[in-house]
């Protein structure tokens, strides 16, 4: 593999030497990946030296790695030299009106109950001055600024707060962590940065802001959230609106640091294009999300609703280092047609009296495959650690699959680990029973699915819970009956 990479690199870099020098003013880098491309990315972004060094180390490490094979998913090999790793963040070509947007997307917006103005923003239609989202965002920023909260793009943070970036980047997800983490670390384009100072409780869900900015997500995003002692933030990334992208591979990284007595609640709704009914197209969503409860009594809570992407690999994890710290993972993953999801969490108990709670709900329909993969590791010093895991699967019909892979490693005898799992199936019998009580098949399915997901949905900020519920219905439309 390394040898093969080397050859590829030689061939492609030969091409670049030619293309690179002459076209240095171009907004888009040539296809492929090599050190020059990484230098280009870093210099275009005007990054400090430490950033470039870090990127290059990550790249060199990546070259020594192999794409992982162990997940319960199948996909054709990805040609990493066939991608473009840098494009200047151009304004998207604005559409003049919603009439120019794919009607299928519009009908989904409608079903989700997204307002017209937001529909325009999300699909890149020019917005009138009154509803200008930039000004809304500016208002948020001013409010947050008063409290000393830093909330900006990753690139801005690199410019304005390099000391924080230098201290924390890769501190939770090192570039050596896995293949996609190394790739992301080498070539990441942008992302978000959030810093909550000591003792500050962020007064708003950072969701509203995100919704407005959701239209521009990159292929290799990075998010870094730092919660100082005694602070609190609830953060929501992604949105229910369907997201299309010409890049097939998405490999994001999220790092969260919670200091003493701090709490971070991170919610995400992922609705990447899953491919068509035959399983063609669709996005590969390979994400590394991890938080560390660095200080005592800190808490990190992940909530995710995953309905999109052709393939999802995602294991939001918590390292419970501080004593009495708490990690939570609430997940709903829906797969339909030919979608494949392999998702779960890792809870690493290091400190005393640490607690973790895992509630994972998988719904499979069509010919899809849905796997829960989770690790609970209790280290020697984690006196009185507690874990509770509940993994439930709901199958719609006979052609889909649900799999559960719970791994448990306990090295401390005072700890307690509980695991429960159930599998239910929505069968003809159940649907007929509901039909007989006046519920059409679609309503019946929604009712069962919502009952199944309730525990996770109630973790979401209110306005998103309602939308997320509708989204589940849409994702499963026509999957039974």
């Amino acid at each position: 593999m390394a040898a093969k990479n080397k050859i590829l690199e030689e061939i492609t870099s030969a091409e670049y030497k030619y293309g690179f020098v002459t076209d240095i003013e171009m907004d888009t880098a040539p296809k492929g990946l090599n050190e020059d491309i990484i230098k280009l990315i870093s210099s275009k972004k005007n990054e400090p030296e430490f950033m470039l060094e870090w990127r290059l180390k990550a790249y060199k490490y990546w070259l020594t790695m192999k794409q992982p094979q162990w997940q319960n998913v199948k996909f054709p090999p990805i040609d990493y030299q066939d991608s473009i790793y840098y494009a200047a963040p151009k304004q998207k070509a604005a559409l003049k009106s919603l009439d120019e947007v794919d009607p299928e997307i519009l009908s989904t917006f409608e079903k989700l109950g997204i307002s017209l103005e937001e529909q325009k923003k999300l699909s890149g239609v020019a917005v009138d001055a009154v509803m200008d989202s930039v000004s809304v965002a500016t208002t948020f920023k001013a409010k947050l600024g008063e409290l000393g909260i830093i909330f900006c793009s990753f690139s801005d943070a690199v410019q304005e707060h390099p000391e924080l970036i230098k201290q924390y980047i890769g501190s939770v997800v090192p570039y050596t962590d896995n293949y996609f983490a190394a790739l992301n670390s080498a070539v990441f384009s942008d992302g978000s940065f959030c810093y909550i100072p000591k003792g500050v409780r962020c007064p708003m869900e950072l969701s509203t802001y995100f919704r407005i900015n959701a239209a521009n997500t990159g292929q290799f995003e990075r998010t870094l959230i730092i919660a100082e002692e005694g602070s609190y933030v609830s953060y929501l990334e992604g949105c229910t609106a369907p997201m299309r992208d010409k890049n097939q591979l998405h490999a994001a990284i999220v790092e969260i640091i919670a200091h003493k007595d701090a709490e971070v609640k991170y919610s995400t709704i992922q609705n990447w294009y899953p491919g068509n009914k035959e399983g063609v197209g669709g996005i590969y969503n390979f994400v590394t999300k991890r938080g560390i409860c660095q200080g005592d009594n800190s808490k990190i809570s992940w909530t995710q609703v995953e309905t999109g992407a052709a393939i999802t690999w995602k294991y939001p994890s918590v390292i419970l280092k501080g004593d009495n710290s708490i990690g939570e993972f609430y997940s709903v993953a829906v797969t339909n047609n030919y979608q494949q999801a392999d998702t779960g969490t890792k809870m690493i108990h290091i400190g005393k009296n640490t607690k973790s709670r895992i509630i994972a709900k998988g719904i499979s329909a069509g010919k899809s495959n849905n796997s829960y993969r989770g690790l609970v590791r209790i280290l020697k010093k984690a006196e009185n650690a507690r874990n509770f895991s509940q993994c439930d699967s709901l199958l719609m019909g006979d052609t889909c699959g649900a799999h559960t892979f719970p791994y448990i490693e306990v090295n401390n005898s005072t700890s307690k680990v509980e695991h429960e799992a159930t599998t239910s199936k929505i069968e003809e019998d159940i649907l007929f029973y509901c039909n007989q009580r006046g519920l059409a098949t679609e309503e019946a399915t929604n009712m069962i699915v919502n009952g199944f997901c309730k525990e996770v949905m109630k973790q979401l900020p209110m306005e998103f819970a309602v939308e997320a519920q509708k989204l589940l219905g849409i994702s499963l439309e026509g999957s039974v009956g």
Partner: protein
Amino acid sequence: MISIKDLKVSIEGKEILKGINLEVNPGELHAIMGPNGSGKSTLASVLAGRPEYEVTGGEILYKGKDLLELPADQRAKQGIFLAFQYPVEIPGVSIANFMRSAINELRKAKNLEPLDAMDFLSEIKDKMKNMGIDLEFLNRAVNEGFSGGEKKRNEIFQMTMMDPDMIILDETDSGLDIDALKIVSEGVNNFRTDEKAFLIITHYQRLLNYIVPDYVHVIYDGRIVKSGDKSLALELEEKGYEWIKKLSKEAVEN
């Protein structure tokens, strides 16, 4: 209310109902009796619109309209209720939630607003009490972990909630002890009006001591082989299945 003419039904290519004729008017209560496997549940399922059954002949008129072209949920919305012989479990859906969804769908079909949550709650509690169902069941998943008798009482409770016009009970009495049988019978009797019609499927005469039918039909091998008043049930009990077989043979030969 309902008019069944020469109804023929098959499942997986096998003919189960071989020409059923039955007329049930508003205010009437008909009992259907017959040995296991004679097609009683098949008849109930076809009336309720179960999709697996194939109607190969005949017709069913409900309130004067062709019933067979309606999907099951529409039939329910138009007042057909089936108390199942084997009620299924609905994973993760509480009775409260299930009934609220069902009733609001019915109301939607009638262009009514959804029921107020407080009104709904007090109604559901009253009706559960009437059926002797513990209120703690409200938040339990529908039929999950219910005993046989609890499932049957739950069906009748749902009937009272949904206020249907054409009620079909499929062996609601089987598996009930005498106390439960009395509660269920009382529930049904209180529900009888001049506007409602009942089709009560039972294996035993016992139920008909409590719920007195206007007519009794005996079904065997997919045909109604004898009809009469309530005394037919007693006669059937006395003479047993051999008598039915003989009747059936005669019916086929005629």
